C-alpha cells in the first residue's frame, strides 16, 4: 500500500483489522460505564425540562415566551438556526470530504453524521412550536385547500425551508444508515445474545460483504455524497433566505448565503470538537480519533471562523458605504446600541478566538481545543442572536422599538434541546459503533 512519508498514520497503536472490531464494538458489547449512566441521566433530566416547557407552551400559548410584536423571532429562531448550523459539519465531513478524498474523515464521519441528525431534530422543534398550534404542524405541507390549510405559498422562503430541512434530514438519515449497515452486520456476527443477534440482524438487511454489493455500495455512497454536497450548501443558503429576502435593515444583504454556510460549518465543527474531545477519551478511541484528526478540524475551524469574520467586517463596511441610513444605523446600533455586549461577544468568539489556531500548540492540545470549541459554540449562538434580535428591535418606526429578553420557558426549551441532543448521542454511543469500522479497516497499515 502507498504510504506518504510526510503524513502521519491515521490510526496509531499498530492496530490490526481484528483490533478495530474489538475496540469499536466494546461499548456495544459491554455494560455502560458509570460515566455513561451519569451523562445519560443528566441529559435525560434536561430532556424532561424540554417536555415540561413545550407542554406549557402548547397549553398556554406563545404568550409564555418573551417574543413580542417587534421582536417576533427571539430565542426560538436563534436556536433553530443554531441547531441547523451544528448539523452542517456532519455533512461536510461525510460528503464534501469524501469527494475531496480526505481520509481523515473516516474516523469521525459516523459521529458527526449522527450529530447532524440529532441537531436537525432539535432545530425542527422551534419553528414547529412557534406556529402556536403544534397539532396543525402539517399545514406547511402542500395539501389541497380542503385539508383546512389553503395552498402553501411557494414564494415564501419559510416554505423553502420546510422543503430544505425535511430533505436534509431524510437524506442525512439515509446516508448515515447506509454507512452503518456493514458495521451493524459486524455487530450481528459477533453477537452473543439472542436480542442483539435479532435486532442487529434485522437492521443489517442481510449484509454479507459480497464484493458485488460493495461495488454498488461505493457507487451509491459516491452519488449520495455528490447530492449531499449541494444539498448542505442549499440548506443554509435557504435558511439565510429567511432573512435575506426580507426588507429589514441588517438582514437584507446578498452576502448572507455564503456567510451563513461558512458560519454553519464553523459552528458545526465547534460542536463536533466539543463532543469528540470528550468521546475519544471516554470511549478509549484515542488511537482512532487522534490528535491529527483534532488538528485537521481546528484548521477548518480557523478557516471558517476567518470567513465569518470577514463577512462581519464586510457587511459592516458595506452598510456604511451604501449610504442607506437605515442600514448604517442598524450596524452601528449592533456595535454600540443596547445589545452591544452580544455583538462584541460574537466578534470576540468568532473572529478573534479561532486565530489562536495559527499556533501548533493550540491545534494539538485537546483540553485547549475543548475550551475553544465551547467558545465557538457560544460565539455562533450569539451570531444568530445578534442578527435576529438587534435587527428587529429597532424598527423603521421608533414607536415600535422594543427590547427582548427570554422567559424561563424559552430557556427551558433551549436547554431541553441540549438534553435531547445529548440523550440521543449517549444512546448512539451505546448501541451503534461510533467509528466507521469498515472504512477504518480499509486504511490500517498493519494487517494480521
Amino acid at each position, binding site marked *: 500500500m502507498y504510504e506518504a512519508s510526510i503524513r502521519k498514520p491515521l490510526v496509531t497503536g499498530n492496530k490490526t483489522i481484528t483490533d478495530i472490531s474489538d475496540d469499536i464494538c466494546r461499548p456495544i458489547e459491554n455494560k455502560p460505564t458509570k460515566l455513561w449512566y451519569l451523562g445519560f441521566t443528566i441529559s435525560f433530566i434536561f430532556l424532561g425540562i424540554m417536555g415540561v416547557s413545550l407542554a406549557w407552551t402548547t397549553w398556554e400559548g406563545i404568550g409564555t415566551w418573551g417574543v413580542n410584536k417587534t421582536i417576533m423571532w427571539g430565542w426560538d429562531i436563534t436556536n433553530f438556526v443554531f441547531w441547523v448550523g451544528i448539523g452542517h459539519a456532519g455533512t461536510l465531513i461525510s460528503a464534501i470530504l469524501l469527494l475531496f478524498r480526505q481520509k481523515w474523515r473516516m474516523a469521525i464521519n459516523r459521529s458527526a453524521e449522527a450529530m447532524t441528525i440529532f441537531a436537525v431534530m432539535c432545530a425542527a422543534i422551534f419553528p414547529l412550536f412557534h406556529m402556536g398550534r403544534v397539532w396543525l404542524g402539517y399545514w406547511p405541507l402542500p395539501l389541497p385547500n380542503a385539508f383546512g390549510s389553503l395552498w402553501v405559498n411557494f414564494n415564501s422562503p419559510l416554505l423553502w425551508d420546510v422543503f430544505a430541512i425535511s430533505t436534509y434530514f431524510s437524506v442525512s438519515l439515509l446516508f448515515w444508515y447506509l454507512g452503518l449497515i456493514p458495521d451493524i452486520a459486524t455487530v450481528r456476527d459477533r453477537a452473543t445474545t439472542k436480542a442483539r443477534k435479532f435486532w442487529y440482524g434485522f437492521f443489517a438487511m442481510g449484509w454479507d460483504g459480497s464484493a458485488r454489493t460493495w461495488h454498488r455500495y461505493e457507487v451509491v455512497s459516491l452519488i449520495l455524497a455528490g447530492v449531499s454536497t449541494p444539498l448542505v450548501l*442549499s440548506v443554509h443558503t435557504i435558511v439565510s433566505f429567511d432573512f435575506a429576502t426580507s426588507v429589514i435593515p441588517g438582514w437584507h444583504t446578498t452576502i448572507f448565503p455564503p456567510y451563513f454556510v461558512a458560519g454553519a460549518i464553523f459552528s458545526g465543527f465547534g460542536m463536533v470538537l466539543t463532543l469528540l474531545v470528550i468521546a475519544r477519551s471516554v470511549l478509549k478511541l484515542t488511537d482512532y480519533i487522534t490528535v491529527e484528526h483534532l488538528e485537521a478540524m481546528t484548521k477548518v475551524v480557523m478557516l471558517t471562523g476567518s470567513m465569518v469574520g470577514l463577512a462581519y467586517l464586510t457587511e459592516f463596511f458595506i452598510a456604511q458605504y451604501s449610504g442607506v441610513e437605515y442600514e448604517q444605523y442598524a450596524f452601528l446600533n449592533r456595535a454600540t446600541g443596547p445589545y452591544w455586549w452580544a455583538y462584541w461577544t460574537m466578534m470576540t468568539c468568532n473572529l478573534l478566538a479561532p486565530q489562536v489556531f495559527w499556533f501548533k500548540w493550540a491545534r494539538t492540545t485537546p483540553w485547549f481545543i475543548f475550551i475553544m470549541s465551547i467558545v465557538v459554540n457560544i460565539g455562533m449562538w450569539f451570531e444568530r442572536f445578534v442578527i435576529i434580535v438587534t435587527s428587529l428591535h429597532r424598527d423603521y418606526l421608533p414607536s415600535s422599538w422594543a427590547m427582548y429578553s427570554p422567559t424561563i420557558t424559552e430557556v427551558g426549551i433551549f436547554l431541553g434541546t441540549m438534553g435531547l441532543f445529548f440523550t440521543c448521542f449517549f444512546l448512539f454511543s451505546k448501541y451503534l459503533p461510533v467509528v466507521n469500522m469498515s472504512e477504518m479497516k480499509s486504511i490500517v497499515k498493519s494487517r494480521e
Partner: protein
Amino acid sequence: MLDKNLIVGVYDNEDNLMSTVGRLRKKGVEIFDCFTPYPVHNLDKEMGIKRSNLTVGAFICGSLGFLSGTLLQFYMMTNHLGTFKSWPMNIGGKPMDYLMLPSMMPVMFELTILFTAFGIGILFFIRSRMIHGKIAAILDPRQTQDRLLIAIEPGHLGISRDELNQILKEEGAIELRERKDGEQVVINV
C-alpha cells in the same frame, strides 16, 4: 445463495486475496463472489465486475424529482398547467404565472435531491436483494470482521480441483473449505 455448492478460500490479508483473484481469472476460472469486511480497493475490477448501472437509475429518479417539483408548484401557484384549475392563491398581488419561476427554484432543487437520494437508495437495496430482517447468507461469521473469503462454484471451474487447491494454498489461503448441500467441511490439502 444459501443452497449453492461452493469452494471457499479463507484469507486474512487483502493482498493475497487480490493476487489469487488475478491468477484464477487468468486461468479462466469464474469467481462466484468474494466476501470482505471492508471494501477492498480494485477488487471489483480484478474480479471483472461491470460498472453498476445504478447511476442511470439515480439520474432517472432525479429527473422525476425535478419534474414533480415543477408540476407541483405550477399546479398550486398558477392556472397554467393544462386545463386544471387549482384555485391558486393571490398573495399580495405577486405573479401567478411563469414569472414566479425564480421562487420555484429552491423547491425544484430540493425535490430533485430528495428523489435522487431515495431513488438510488431503494434501487440499491432492491438490486442487492437487501431488506430489513433478511437472514444473512454468511459463509463464515468472521467475514464481516477480519477474514476475506473467495467463493468459487465447483461447476464453473475450468481447471482441475487439485490445481485450484494448489493455487489457493500458494497464494496464502489460511483455510480451504467446501460447502455441499448447506454443510461446510474443511479440506486439508
